[in-house]
């Protein structure tokens, strides 16, 4: 199709709109309701343009291009129409720009300069629209500003997958609202603030704290999940004031999750650790860096000389930077210990040493949209990976068959092809059934050990979907990696991929779940679980809060409390750290350090600090480097984080090498019986408890996703325990216990109780997926 816009020729594919063509040749057509990622509404009418032979101006966003079409975006007819629309938009819009948070970044304000009149002809009373309270993240206090473009409504329906906002009433009384007093709870809700072209939906935490023109914009990368969303961090007076998405179509498109948007509040939290502290006479005291580091090096040397190198263990958060992880493992190995790991929530390490390469997603994020079918195994999907789930949602919307096999019956807000919800113990069996079904469909022999498995109709449907089409994928989620039989799940997924021709990959738990492998922050002796199961004398903890971040917090805490030396490198000094830490070294979070994250597709994304460090906090890589020097270890002479990175990956390479999910030498051994009579625990890691930053962000902690954990069971389980919904129950694992409220939840599989991890109320409990005892309290 050829189209002429203001004399410029554009070639566009059939089905394009005038707006598409205009964007292609860089012709700007004013608009409000149009958004590249949302369906066409054509309701604001700002993009009216003149089309040759059309008697009336036509909306560029909705008018399909016809061959030879001639469009005039600035003709008298077009401009008159655009100005007419602008006048209508302004007649009921309040004149409160001076106090409006959107001021300076308001599309209505900007376009009013070009298309608005200098005085209003509207002499009537303006519309009054009542404010709404929709929760701690989005402010809807000045809804008279709304211009009814419905971008927010369409975002909910189309991107977030849940319609929480609608436009109620009709005529000029139309108003955007939630259902009678409800809050907006989507984990992607903050994007609606960005989409709102005016100041109707604003950021509640950011409100009235700065004007947009006072902010400097710095590029950064999300430190939370494994997607590595690209961020713009906005800074005023050396303080991070807000975080916005930075467009990267291949990674986060133009979205970020609420965790990524609002966790910045933690950076300015009063819980930040300002100075190093060491335990003196039983109490932690602030000291200077040189005192603290000297203390650490002596303490570590003492432990090693008294108890041997193997008495030292180091555990890092997978949200640490690549550089931090690298120097930590170098330090640990340099001190002669092989007890280093970055996978605190892992239980099954039997695949270590059996992998062909670095586990990763198995394909590029941008390839997800081309899949014909996908199976996700062991994941809380949208709460684990909001943007990954969003991509699957779009895939399902255009006909891709997305199936979910997990222990969570939570609504994924994805139009699933098939869903199987089973107990954690049954998860390997359920995946084995899909493998067997695939083998049967292909008339191939199923792997040994699956003889007695009889695939159900749903397993067959999943297998069939994976056999159809060009591109298919199997994804292992966080719960599959945390699972006590993670390696079995891995082997089965690989086998399924082999049988069906699908790719197989790991979604990856955290910002550096791939990076940790690049940094080789992996054990050559005790792993993340063993280092607590077999208590050590000295621990170095990097960015982890073990009571919340470990697979078995009870075991971790016990070991830490008994240890001679616990050195903690952390941005925060609160929580349980004072109970076990002997040294607290304040390190800087991602906004105050340079470093790199390697996302789940192996993309290396380096970033620099955007503000000066808080107090005396220092970048973790520098602290580790100096420690290396103090301990007289070789290879600690880097002057920049870039130098550290370049020791791991060739400079300038966009992706890391060596990604390979194949596994060999792990025999299939499925236990066909779940432990009889025992209740099994299903532990989710709630989205806003998942890492220290999220846990320290006040607004996120006020959301519905951050309510304290309950003990969720289905009605049959409740009845068996003679417990009613709402009653207190005592939960026991090992010698720890917690008292929580029982909740009826029919999505929880039989014989299971769902108790969230990563929360202080459940920190006394043990393994995420082990047996658990529940009784009336």
């Amino acid at each position: 199709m050829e189209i002429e816009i203001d004399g410029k020729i554009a070639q566009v594919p059939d089905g394009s709109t005038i707006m598409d063509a205009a964007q292609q040749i860089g012709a700007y057509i004013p608009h409000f309701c149009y958004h590249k990622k949302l369906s066409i509404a054509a309701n604001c009418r700002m993009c009216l343009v003149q089309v040759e032979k059309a008697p009336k101006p036509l909306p560029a966003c909705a008018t399909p291009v016809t061959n030879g079409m001639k469009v005039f975006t600035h003709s008298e007819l077009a401009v008159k129409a655009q100005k007419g629309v602008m006048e209508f938009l302004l007649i009921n819009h309040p004149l409160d720009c001076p106090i409006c948070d959107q001021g300076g970044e308001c599309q209505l304000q900007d376009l009013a300069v070009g298309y608005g009149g200098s005085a209003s002809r509207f002499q009537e009373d303006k519309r009054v629209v009542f404010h709404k309270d929709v929760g701690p993240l989005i402010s809807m206090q000045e809804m008279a500003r709304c211009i009814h473009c419905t971008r927010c409504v369409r975002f909910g329906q189309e991107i977030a997958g849940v319609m929480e906002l609608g436009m109620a009433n009709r005529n000029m009384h139309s108003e955007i609202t939630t259902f009678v007093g409800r809050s907006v709870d989507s984990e992607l809700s903050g994007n609606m603030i960005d989409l709102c072209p005016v100041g109707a939906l604003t950021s509640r935490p950011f409100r009235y704290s700065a004007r947009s023109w006072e902010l400097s914009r710095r590029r950064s990368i999300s430190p939370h999940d494994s997607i590595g969303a690209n961020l713009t961090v906005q800074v005023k007076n050396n303080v991070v004031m807000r975080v916005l998405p930075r467009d990267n179509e291949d990674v986060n498109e133009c979205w970020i999750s609420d965790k990524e948007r609002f966790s910045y509040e933690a950076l300015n939290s009063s819980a930040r650790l300002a100075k190093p502290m060491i335990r003196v006479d039983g109490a932690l005291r602030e000291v200077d860096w040189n005192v603290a580091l000297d203390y650490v090096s002596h303490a570590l040397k003492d432990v090693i000389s008294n108890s041997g190198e193997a008495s030292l263990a180091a555990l890092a958060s997978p949200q640490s930077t690549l550089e931090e992880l690298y120097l930590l493992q170098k330090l640990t190995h340099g001190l002669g210990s092989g007890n280093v790991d970055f996978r605190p929530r892992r239980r099954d390490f039997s695949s270590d040493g059996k992998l062909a390469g670095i586990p990763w997603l198995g394909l590029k994020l941008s390839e997800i949209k081309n899949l014909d079918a996908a199976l996700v195994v062991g994941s809380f999907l949208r709460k684990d990976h909001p943007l990954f789930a969003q991509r699957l949602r779009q895939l399902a919307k255009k006909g891709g068959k997305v199936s979910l096999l997990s222990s969570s019956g939570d609504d994924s807000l994805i139009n699933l092809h098939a869903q199987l919800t089973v107990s954690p113990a049954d998860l390997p069996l359920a995946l084995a059934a899909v493998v067997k079904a695939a083998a049967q469909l292909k008339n191939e022999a199923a792997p040994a050990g699956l003889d007695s498995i009889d695939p159900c109709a749903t397993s067959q449907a999943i297998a069939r979907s994976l056999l159809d089409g060009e591109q298919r994928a199997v994804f292992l989620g966080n719960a599959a990696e945390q699972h006590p039989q993670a390696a079995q799940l891995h082997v089965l997924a690989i086998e399924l991929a082999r049988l069906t021709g699908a790719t197989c990959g790991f979604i990856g738990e955290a910002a550096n779940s791939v990076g940790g492998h690049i940094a080789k922050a992996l054990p050559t002796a005790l792993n993340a679980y063993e280092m607590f199961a077999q208590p050590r004398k000295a621990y170095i903890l990097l960015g982890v809060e073990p009571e919340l971040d470990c697979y078995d917090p009870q075991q971790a805490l016990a070991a830490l409390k008994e240890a001679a030396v616990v050195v903690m490198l952390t941005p925060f000094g609160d929580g349980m750290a004072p109970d076990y830490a002997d040294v607290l070294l304040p390190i800087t979070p991602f906004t105050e350090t340079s470093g790199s994250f390697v996302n789940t597709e192996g993309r290396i994304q380096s970033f620099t600090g955007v503000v000066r460090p808080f107090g005396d906090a220092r970048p973790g890589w520098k602290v580790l480097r100096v420690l290396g020097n103090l301990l007289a270890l070789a290879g600690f002479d880097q002057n920049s984080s870039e130098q550290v990175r370049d020791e791991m990956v060739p400079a300038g390479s966009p992706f890391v090498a060596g990604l390979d999910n194949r596994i060999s030498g792990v025999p299939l051994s499925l236990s066909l019986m779940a432990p009889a009579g025992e209740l099994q625990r299903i532990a989710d890691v709630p989205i806003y408890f998942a890492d220290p930053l999220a846990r320290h962000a006040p607004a996120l902690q006020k959301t519905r996703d951050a309510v304290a954990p309950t003990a969720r069971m289905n009605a049959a389980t409740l009845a068996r325990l003679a417990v009613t919904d709402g009653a207190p129950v005592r939960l026991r694992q090992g010698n720890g216990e917690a008292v929580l409220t029982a909740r009826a939840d029919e999505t929880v599989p039989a014989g299971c109780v769902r108790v969230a991890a990563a929360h202080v109320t459940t920190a006394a409990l043990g393994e995420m997926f082990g047996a658990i005892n529940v009784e009336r309290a």
Partner: protein
Amino acid sequence: MLTSESLKRIDREIAKYPVDQKQSAVMAALAIAQEQQGWLSSEAIEAVANYLGMAPVAAYEVATFYNMYDLKPVGKYKVSVCTNLPCMLSGGVDAGEYLQKKLGIGYNETTADGLITLKEGECMGACGDAPVMIVNNRRMCSWMNPEQIDKLLAELK
């Protein structure tokens, strides 16, 4: 929330539409819920939404868009008077004023005994019968001169 009788009627409406288009029954279901309750509470709207598998706010959009739904309690009888131009030319406005005087209430008000709520309606598609009014969304009353209005009011007990 919804009685089994209401659910049965809603099921009959759902059956009119393709199996994957349950939401099509939302207007009828809301009308049925309103009949059951006398008005449409948020709880009723949500119950309808859940029954039809749609977002509560989507059902709320529908309930607030169409003006025969009452989202606030109304009297035992809701009398809607058409005052649109064709009716006005034949006494629609006069009929409304006559009713207001008789009942001692204005539009959108309810008599103290909770018996009658008066509404100003839009075109009911019966202009030839003006003045027209509708009782409880169901019964259309035609040619409502003073005598007829008196008769109607005597009936609404």
